[in-house]
């Protein structure tokens, strides 16, 4: 242990691969609310395509319900804020759960946490094609490759990111253009707005560099999924999978409203 690392707060690192996104999100929510440790969760791709909305997301506004229902694509509402993503084996996830007191220079507010994360990832993408945090997205130039979301409690916060290692156009077609878009998007459609991370950095190298960057501020301890203490489960759980019936009911109401609007 080098002298400079003495006194750094501890962070548990959990590396997952192909873990279902619902399971990952439920784990994160539990660790945020019930654990007192710091956590870095890396999921190197999830197993199946899923749509994940933020806490306030409305399926009728964000999702193309007919093909989603037809293709039985799971739709999840997560506990953090932010927008809607479609994730699959080519999405990389990095989640950082921190005690407020262990990151004392960061105020427990969205902009402060976002700025801290931008600084962290600047180390990861140092020298790579004009990386920056732009509004609330990670971009190369003006093309988004990483979306962020947070949840802030009294003494802890989570900042988690889904990185577009690669994506399929057909999966992207499940999503509607949201009403709220960042200003820098301008009028660009999806294919002109996003980019594939694989065109800029090697996959294993990205994960290694991210963990190394986290290690500049924390003392790291790697844990396997099975080593995570899950004895405390008395916490509010807001992450959930929407049922097929809910989606069908939403589609029926949307169709009815559209019919009424057209008739008028």
């Amino acid at each position, binding site marked *: 242990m080098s002298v400079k690392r003495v006194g750094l707060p501890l962070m548990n690192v959990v590396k997952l691969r192909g873990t279902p996104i619902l399971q990952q999100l439920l784990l994160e929510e539990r660790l945020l609310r019930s654990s007192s440790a710091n956590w870095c969760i890396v999921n190197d791709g999830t197993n199946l395509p899923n749509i994940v909305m*933020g*806490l*306030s997301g409305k399926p009728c506004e964000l999702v193309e319900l007919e093909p989603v229902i037809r293709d039985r694509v799971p739709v999840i509402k997560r*506990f*953090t*804020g*932010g*927008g809607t993503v479609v994730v699959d084996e080519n999405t990389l996830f990095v989640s950082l759960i921190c005690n407020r007191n262990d990151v*004392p*220079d*960061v*105020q*427990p*507010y*969205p*902009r*402060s*946490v*976002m700025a801290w994360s931008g600084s962290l990832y600047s180390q990861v993408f140092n020298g790579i094609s004009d990386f920056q945090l732009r509004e*609330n997205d990670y971009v190369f130039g003006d093309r988004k490759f990483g979306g*962020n*979301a*947070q*949840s*802030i*409690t*009294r003494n802890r916060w989570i900042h988690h990111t889904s990185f577009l290692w690669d994506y399929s156009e057909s999966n992207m077609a499940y999503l509607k253009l949201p009403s*709220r878009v960042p200003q820098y998007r301008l009028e660009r459609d999806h294919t002109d707005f996003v980019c594939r991370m694989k065109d800029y950095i090697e996959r294993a190298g990205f994960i290694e560099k991210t963990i190394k960057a986290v290690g500049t501020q924390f003392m790291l301890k790697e844990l396997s999924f099975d080593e995570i203490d899950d004895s405390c489960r008395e916490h*509010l759980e807001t992450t959930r999978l929407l049922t097929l019936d809910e989606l069908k009911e939403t589609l029926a109401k949307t169709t009815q409203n559209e019919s009424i609007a057209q008739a008028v």
Partner: protein
Amino acid sequence: MALRMWASSTANALKLSSSVSKSQLSPAFSISRCFSSVLEGLKYANSHEWVKHEGSVATIGITDHAQDHLGEVVFVELPEENGSVSKEKSFGAVESVKATSEILSPISGEVIEVNKKLSEAPGLINSSPYEDGWMIKVKPSNPSELESLMGSKEYTKFCEEEDAAH
């Protein structure tokens, strides 16, 4: 330092000339860097919620300092009426700028009214944090809990120190 002196004299001038608002509160502007407003007559929690206690009812919301730091509020999650809240425990959440932030109740009690306007107009929390942006009304179960909360001067200083530390 010059800015603080200007702000101090301005705050005093405003205090002297301000009229009492319809809620019978007189504004006392803080000398914080962001000039967030802090109202006299309210009590404040160190998690940035305010309480207005009138008779058997306490109205709760988040402060101007909090809404300023959170950014544009796009969604509010509030409890059901007739439910209960507990001191320093979460009773809901606001969503702003990609983040959900929990709201803690400064006191314990029964929720007797919820601000239904916030479901359609969550931005009221930003534009009117102490009036139209109120969140819940509570019948306090232990009014002595109010005594441990901060007054306006104490809360102003608390915000200044918190911002200065970052």
